[in-house]
């Protein structure tokens, strides 16, 4: 299969033959679809795309694509992706994971990835639960959601990914709903095209452990206001939103990280004079 020959790609060209372990009805199927559609629209050959993930249901996505993939360890997808992009700036790099992987164990890398502003796209499939480990509250779970690990709910204020992204310096911030294939596709395309670190939170229901999330499709609505390039304004707006606004909320103009590995190298002998006495 020598895809580089063809001029254009269809979404299906980005799918591998591996069948997902996801539960029937899981929102992540839609994310996979939007993602492959976005790739087709971007037209980047699958071999020039890398999809990096952590651990979780959502993090299984790389193997379901026909791109280069890395299913790493829990919480470390962002630094894997940053290392790859810095070493191989020619690639289109995606980091894709879940709310547990990205905001619980991976929270620190999220903060610093936003700051570092390496040119990659970070997609989080937020189902407000740890799906893979069978239903524990994640940082984005409502405080009163009852579960075995937190009977009666955690009582904790949910983590607000978009606000944190803005506060930490992400260059592009958006929220989508997995069920809206068209909008999600468009936003992923835009995120890739926007320079620097782009963050797309996709509300993606976990039908098994959060069947209540099936109702999301009725709750989401396109953002009432236009995207801004003022982070303070964007933050204030998102801090008071209902959690179901979708669309691009912020487009920044910070300079992306620019210290990459080059394609050709000098002879290390040039380093030796400093030692000679």
């Amino acid at each position, binding site marked *: 299969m020598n895809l*580089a020959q063809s001029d254009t790609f269809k979404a299906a060209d980005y799918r591998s033959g*591996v069948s997902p372990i996801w539960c029937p009805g899981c929102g992540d199927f839609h994310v996979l679809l939007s993602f492959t559609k976005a790739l087709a629209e971007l037209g980047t050959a699958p071999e020039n795309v890398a*999809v990096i993930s952590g651990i979780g249901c959502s993090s299984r996505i790389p193997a379901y694509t026909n791109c280069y993939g890395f299913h790493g*360890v829990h919480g470390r997808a962002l630094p*894997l992706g940053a290392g790859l992009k810095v070493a191989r700036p020619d690639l289109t790099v995606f980091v894709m994971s879940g709310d547990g992987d990205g905001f619980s164990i991976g929270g620190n890398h999220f903060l610093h990835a936003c700051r570092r502003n390496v040119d990659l796209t970070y997609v989080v499939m937020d189902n407000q639960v740890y799906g893979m480990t069978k239903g524990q509250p994640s940082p984005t779970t409502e405080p009163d959601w009852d579960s075995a690990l937190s009977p009666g709910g955690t009582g904790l204020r949910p983590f607000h990914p978009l606000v944190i992204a803005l506060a930490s310096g992400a260059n592009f911030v958006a929220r989508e709903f997995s069920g809206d294939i068209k909008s999600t596709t468009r936003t992923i395309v835009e995120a890739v095209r926007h320079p620097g670190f782009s963050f797309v939170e996709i509300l993606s229901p976990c039908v098994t452990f959060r069947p209540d999330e099936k109702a999301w499709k009725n709750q989401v609505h396109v953002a009432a206001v236009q995207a801004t390039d003022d982070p303070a304004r964007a933050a204030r707006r998102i801090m008071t939103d209902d959690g179901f606004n979708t669309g691009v909320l912020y487009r920044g103009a910070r300079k992306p990280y620019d*210290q990459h590995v080059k394609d050709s190298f000098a002879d290390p002998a040039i380093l*030796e004079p400093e030692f000679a006495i």
Partner: protein
Amino acid sequence: MMPNEAPHSTRRSISFAIVGSGGAGALTAGAILMEAAGKAGWYGIMNRSVGAQIRGGEAAALVRLSTRPVDCMTGSFDILIAIDWHNANRFAAEMPLAPDGLVIGDPANGDVPETIAGPGVSQAYIPFKELAGSLAGGRENMIAVGLFVGLMGLPIETVTSVIADKLSEKGEQAIETGCRCVQIGVQQAAQLGSSFTLETPATSQTGRWLITGNEAVGLGAVRGGIRFAAAYPITPATEVLEWLAPALTKVGGTLVQAEDELASISMAIGASFGGRPSITATSGPGLALMVESLGLAAASEIPIVVVNVMRGGPSTGIPTKSEQSDLNIAVYGCHGDAPRIVVAPLSVADCLFAAQWAVHLAEAMQVPTIVLSDQSLGQAQVVVDPPTQLAFIARRAVVETVEDEGYQRYALTGSSVSPMALPGTTGGQYTADGLSHTVKGIPSSNNLDHQSQLDKRHNKIAGFDYGNHWASIEDNGVAGADADFTILTWGSLTGAAREAMATLADEGIGVTLVAMRLIAPLLKDKLVAALEGAQRILILEQTHSGQFRQYLRANCDLPGEVQHFHRAGPQLIGPAEICTRIRNWRAS
């Protein structure tokens, strides 16, 4: 007791220390002497010792100069010059004087403390402060430099040129004052007379290098092909990273500062997945944070090099002092069976070799590789002959083109190394995975997939040809019946063992050295062969629990009688102690 009338014989090697409180410039003085001696044809090694104070505390430069390459301090000092006596007690334990040693203090600071002045040790007093004060901008440490120059007989022009170089930014005046101070010191030395003159070096060969172990690791890594580094600072490994930062930029690579060690190792893995040989450097606490991802690199077969510069442990331990107690975590510190390579440099200069070899091994076998250096190597500076070029360069098996859909990233091959498709290669797409997987990388909990991939990861390491680099096997030239001792050690203690062997050779005691550079895998057959016929084996290691001995024992039986000399840091096992051990054993 002035050593005025001491017999004027020359020495092949002299160890000296210069101590002072913060700002006294003891470390600068040591650095000037090292460089000057190196330029003039001697070899040398220098360590630093500083107090708990971040800055402004006491500091000591510990230097040894010799006509031959040296890998370690001797354990005792011939000359100690104290600009002042702050914290003398702490230094007393660290820098014992040789029985015929000389200690010089400033009369303004009172008598030489009893803890320092041992029996037989000569004492002398020089008014550093007063002499320095006699010149505008005069500095006590420069007077001390002059004293050493005079006592040891270093060529003053070389010292002057080093000073001119070092102080070039401070201007003409500073240089001149510095040189004047040195002259005053030399004059004082002349009045003292000296039994500490260094033998003239064999050749006044030029072109020596002055390099620390941490720099040598960096250079070896870049020579081996490293083009990406991720960094989180930690004592005593920071200098590896600080050296790499500009160096990588110069050759076309880069260093990224990470938010923590979880990120730094992950970045290195990500970059290596992209095809760029990658490295990170840390010390024990950082390595502890890296073991999860080290397992990922093992399972997904992504080569990376992790330099671990050991310090006193456990936990935060003693960050500024050396120990060899990260052997266990380096070899065993992953959940599941995650074979890896562990390489240990045998000297400061060998840091270059070990690091370059590590890159080569990591890349050839697609395996995480740990370089186990330690503080006594990493932060020591040596004067050495320029290292030769080595053939070890990163040569990763990659697939260039893929013709059909059958590409198997984790194919079971003869060598058990599977050619890797780098992103960008058409048709080579696969997903690297830490889950148990099939030959194609697809997650599998199937028994046979799990077994065969575990076999593969074991076999590629077990079957590799490490040549004769796995250990340095040396004798001390004493032939015949007396050659019945073997020292079995690893890493940084090699220098002390070599030194002890040289001493014992003079006494006619034959000693063989097996100094292991390849720690994991343990090449049992080669080790057993190297030890064949050994009568008495002395195992040396710098750990409290005897990790190295346990590790050897876990893997093979040692012949003959075995004694075990081990202790935790910070007090390094020295050549004299080793000699005593062997002499006593011989006598018993």
